[in-house]
């Protein structure tokens, strides 16, 4: 049981990292993106290819795949300059399908539908993470969750965060205030994708394998659900959302009734929870927490004056 619970927390951590990235895009910048799973997939596959075909170590692979994913994020960020609202959502949806399609078809690199197996774990100063040893994985992943959390928090609590918020509120007014909206929107996508790339490389390394079916539209939706269910524009809530969604989908297994109730029923319950949650808490369980920059600044400035 312990192992199983630890495993759930490993998954929560991986999803939380990419959900934090998505929160930056959807929650703070207000751009609806439906391709976070594609970013996760790009990250996972980059890491998998780097580690298996080119024998990179995990840490280099993680960083490089983060960067590769960030570049892809930059690419999909470009349409945001022209597309608004749901039109952008559709472009990202299409992009997600394209990525999945390419992963399945690019046999020479991605091994096609078979996926890539035998991906090694990280090696930290001689300590090998094995996927059997869950405690160390939980620690590793939650440390990275912590770093990501701090990273996103630094962004949103700064001048940049205010700019993103202004873009979400009113893009035209923001550009009339001298904010380079293009730069920030692409920046949000790039950063969000980077985090998804990191999460993807952890995903690949922990599971020791990647397969193309994994990174589908439903996964993007799951990650979006985490962000919305917790509360848009609230990092704390995003992590909580990840915990809720993953645990909800594993409830039958946690209670040991997964073999008693039909698996479809499990999904039905999940859908039902989603609908009811939206009807009764449309703003999310925790909701948006509006940062008060005046107060943040005051605090920081007092600190400075000392």
């Amino acid at each position, binding site marked *: 049981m312990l192992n199983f*619970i630890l495993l759930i927390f490993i998954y929560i951590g991986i999803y939380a990292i990419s959900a934090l990235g998505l929160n930056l895009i959807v929650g703070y910048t207000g751009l609806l993106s439906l391709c976070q799973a594609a970013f996760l997939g790009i990250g996972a596959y980059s890491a998998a290819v780097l580690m298996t075909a080119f024998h990179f170590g995990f840490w280099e692979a993680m960083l490089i795949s983060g960067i590769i994913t960030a570049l892809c994020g930059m690419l999909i960020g470009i349409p945001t300059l022209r597309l608004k609202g749901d039109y952008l959502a559709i472009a990202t949806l299409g992009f997600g399908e394209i990525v999945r399609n390419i992963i399945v078809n690019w046999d020479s690199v991605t091994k096609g539908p078979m996926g890539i197996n035998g991906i090694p774990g990280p090696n930290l100063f001689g300590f090998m993470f094995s996927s059997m040893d869950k405690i160390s994985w939980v620690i590793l992943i939650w440390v990275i969750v912590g770093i990501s959390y701090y990273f996103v928090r630094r962004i949103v609590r700064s001048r940049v965060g205010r700019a993103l918020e202004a873009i979400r509120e009113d893009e035209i007014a923001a550009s009339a205030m001298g904010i380079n909206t293009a730069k920030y929107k692409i920046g949000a996508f790039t950063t969000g994708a980077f985090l998804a790339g990191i999460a993807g490389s952890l995903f690949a390394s922990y599971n020791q394998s990647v397969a193309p079916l994994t990174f589908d539209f439903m996964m993007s939706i799951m990650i979006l659900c985490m962000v919305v269910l917790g509360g848009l524009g609230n990092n704390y809530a995003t992590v909580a959302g990840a915990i809720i969604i993953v645990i909800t989908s594993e409830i039958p297994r946690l209670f040991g009734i997964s073999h008693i109730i039909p698996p479809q029923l499990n999904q039905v319950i999940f859908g039902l929870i989603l609908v009811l949650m939206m009807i009764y808490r449309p703003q999310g369980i925790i909701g948006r927490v509006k940062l008060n920059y005046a107060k943040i600044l005051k605090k920081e400035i007092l600190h400075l004056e000392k």
Partner: protein
Amino acid sequence: MKKLLSVLISLMLLFALACGKESDVVKSGETIKIGFLGPMTGDAGNYGKLMSQAVKVAVEEFNAAGGAEGFNAEVLVEDTEGKVEKANPAIEKLAGVDKVFGIVGSVFSSVSLAVAPKAEASKIVMISPSSTHKDLPEKGKFIFRDVMSDALQAIVFGKYLAKVENVKTVAILYIKNDYSQGLAMDFKAQFEKEGGKVVAVETALQGDKDFKTQLTKIKGANPEAIYFPNYVAEIAQMLEQSKQLGIKAKFYSADGFSNPQILELAGDLANGVIYTQAAEQPTSQKRKDFEAKYLAKWGEKPDAFSLNAYDGALIMLNAIKATSSKAMGGNLKIDRDKVRDFVAKTKDYDGASGKITFTANGDLVANIGIYTAENRKFKQLKMFKLDGENLVEIK
């Protein structure tokens, strides 16, 4: 954040204390647990459903025969949705929480390859009824399969088409999934090696149901025969659309065709399609009994993979029965290594799917049958085995 983390950590510690000890003992009054791992929802849900039903039949049979030392067995079905990230929690749960002694599964090769190391590490005998990828048996001592590998099937069929049927040109249409692609690629290599010519290779995506574009292109290439190494829903579609497009070539397929649903979906179009499958004793009583039981219990017919699932389940249950012993307090003691060794020694096991023998690494030693569908029934035409490079017909 800090609060959250501290709650998490204390939760983990709590569980660590609560379920600390490992054991290979089944307490009296409890059941011997085995697992089934496969897609129960989603596109391929039907394959998982049929196979899991077969395992349930096997367990019932085992229990009816007295179980192991009076202990009954029970199968826990876990859904993988055909996805690696869903299969991982499933096997962790089976291994960590339920402490199963064997797993029938997984269905897809990609998933089996991903979960195999975990089964190996937990010393769980895993017998896959349908993962045909050639690398699977090498994943560990505890990993077996009672379905023949793509490589074997494709090689035999490649030789058969070139040598026996004397086909010169072939087009291949396969779905981009682990099963179809493996077969298609191995077949192509073998057929070309035999001097045949593959005039067109067309692919489609998992979930596609419209193959007219590909078939139109294939029609343009004008092959003598078309090879469809896919699952039934797609094959039925391909056969029908081929007919609609007026394609006159001969159709060939692989063991995916053995699902009796094809007879329903494709109707008369299934007639004359020649396919490969692990050879079975057509008259085997065991198979007839199983099919009767299955039909009575579930109201539908099993497919070839279900036969494998049934055999796999019984092989591991028999191994448990043979190696377990009564321990103190009326408990049943099961030694995982012994179970594994017993399974590995399986030789000429008389199963519903035919004679089953495992190779040293856990693969199936199989005779390959050439089958066809005729008047809504499957019929075995010939049987071959591979002797080195040569195809040897078994009379």
